[in-house]
């Protein structure tokens, strides 16, 4: 700690509290809105304290309210989003750890060319290549499929670079010891590299899961049927619902439900996440 005087502690806590307030208040306000009736929400100002409609709103949303507006239930939306987020996170980790493994531990012709090819894709975000990617998905008949949602997003230069940096810190002696101990490339990967990378994998998983969960543009393009919608897309459709007034209380409930899974992932993996970011176990 830099200082330990009482005054400094107060200042530090005050700054943190302001920060928390700024981050947490919109979420709190969404929660508050999700516990009031539509009439209360539409008649400003919205109260600062939760109302008494928690059970009504949440059961209405879960038991068909969202279905009535968007054509699919919250359960389907959550499931779709979960599949996409998990697919993207796991897919990205698998692909990037394997390509980093190849680039760091094997000597093959054009190794650096491949490395730079991967590196260059950092400069091409999804938005830049979205039209050609869409055309490819159409040609492959992958519109409105989970594969169509996931596959175009799983190549990841960032994750590859992170794993590369980590692999480069593994001492050459360890690789040689494994060779003398009779571990071939696969054995070395599974017995030594993977266990050593587990904190990095956990940290990446958290980041990538949230990245996948909050995807907007690509799912919007590649899904047409309502029952393939992700929860983020469904929220947007609920807001701009054309035939009637926006059901704000249900929108707020859906928004709260959309926030819960990422929070669970972060809280559940917090210990690993922090460890993966700060220390490497060696």
């Amino acid at each position, binding site marked *: 700690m830099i200082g330990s005087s009482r005054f400094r502690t107060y200042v530090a806590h005050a700054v943190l509290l302001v920060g928390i307030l700024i981050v947490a208040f919109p979420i709190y306000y969404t929660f508050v809105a999700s516990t009031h009736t539509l009439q209360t929400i539409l008649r400003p100002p919205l109260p600062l304290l939760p109302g008494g409609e928690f059970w009504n709103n949440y059961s209405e949303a879960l038991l068909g309210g969202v279905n009535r507006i968007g054509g699919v239930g919250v359960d389907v939306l959550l499931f779709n989003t979960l599949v996409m987020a998990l697919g993207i996170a796991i897919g990205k980790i698998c692909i990037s750890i394997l390509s980093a493994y190849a680039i760091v531990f094997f000597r093959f012709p054009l190794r650096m060319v491949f490395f730079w090819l991967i590196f260059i894709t950092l400069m091409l975000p999804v938005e830049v290549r979205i039209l050609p990617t869409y055309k490819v998905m159409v040609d492959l008949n992958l519109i409105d499929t989970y594969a169509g949602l996931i596959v175009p997003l799983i190549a990841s230069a960032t994750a590859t670079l992170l794993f590369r940096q980590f692999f480069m810190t593994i*001492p050459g*002696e*360890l690789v*040689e*010891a*494994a*060779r*003398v*101990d*009779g*571990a*071939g490339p696969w*054995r070395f990967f599974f*017995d*030594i590299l993977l*266990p*050593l990378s587990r904190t990095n994998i956990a940290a990446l998983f958290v980041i990538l899961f949230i990245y996948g969960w909050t995807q907007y543009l690509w799912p919007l393009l590649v899904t047409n049927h309502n029952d393939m919608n992700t929860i983020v897309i469904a929220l947007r459709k609920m807001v701009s619902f054309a035939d009637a007034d926006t059901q704000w209380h249900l929108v707020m409930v859906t928004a709260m439900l959309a926030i819960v899974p990422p929070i669970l992932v972060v809280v559940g993996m917090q210990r690993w996440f922090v460890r993966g970011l700060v220390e490497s*176990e*060696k």
Partner: protein
Amino acid sequence: MATVDMKDVKKVYAGGVEAVKGVSIAIPDKQLCVLVGPSGCGKSTLLRMIAGLEAISSGTVSIDGKVVNAISPTDRDIAMVFQNYALYPHMNVYDNMAYGLRNRGTPKAEIDSRVRSTAKVLELAHLLERRPRELSGGQRQRVAMGRAIVRNPKVFLFDEPLSNLDAKLRGQMRVEIKNLQRNLGVTSVYVTHDQLEAMTLADILVVMNAGLVEQMGAPLDIYEKPASTFVASFIGAPPMNLMALKREGGHARLAEGVTLGVEPPATAATLGFRPEDAIVGQVEGKRALVLPAVVEAVEPVGAESFLHCAATGDRVLVRVSGRATAKPGDKLSITASLDKIHWFDAAGKRV
């Protein structure tokens, strides 16, 4: 169990750098061969070529009479102890030792009995569940040894295994390694830059310099008859005193007023004597090399003291046992008996 033969082994790296320039060493069964030399002399490269971690550019390495140039490290039946131990950080001591056996498909019961008996020998039995980071340096070193021993290989390879330990532990482990190697009777190659380790461990000592073998033989033979000025200054601590001879009218001499005591061999260009072979003062009635000298510094070590002196333009080191009475600035004579003087020619080779 096994012999190791190197025949004209060379290592040329891409880019033309020659790290090992043709080395032939034959290590008989159960012997411990120490490769010693300054950093960059190619000793580690040579070891890694025996291990199979480095490709052999030309020449052959054979283990037990079989050429192993094209055989992978796994199948050479060798075990290696690395400088930084290279223990698998995520495995406990037991798994670290068992890993090599598991990869070779050894039955579980046999793995267990071998790991446990090796752990007992190395006094690691109570540490089997620990992770490497929970161990001290000396314990890690033991685990690294255990990992090699448990496999019961034909050859042990040691790559400066003690250089990360503190001085006291190093001395202790040195003795342990020697005893283990002798008890197990496994042919071993040991790389070090520490001449003390080299002298005490070796059955065969190989002094390397710039990719070549300078001298090979029993440690004390090398100590007593160094083949070159390089070996003379590398083996022995503190190193041998070397003084250049001047030739005047066919006679070799050191400087004005210095008795060489003997006519040196015709080709001699350098004379050398060890600090422990010289005494302070003069000995009556004996032909000897007598150097007038001025004490520059005194290093008391306890059992002995070293006098750093300036004599005829050279720096000369003399060992005196016990406490030295001389002080910096004192003038004295240094006497070395003639049978303890080594002669080297202009190329640095022993005459």
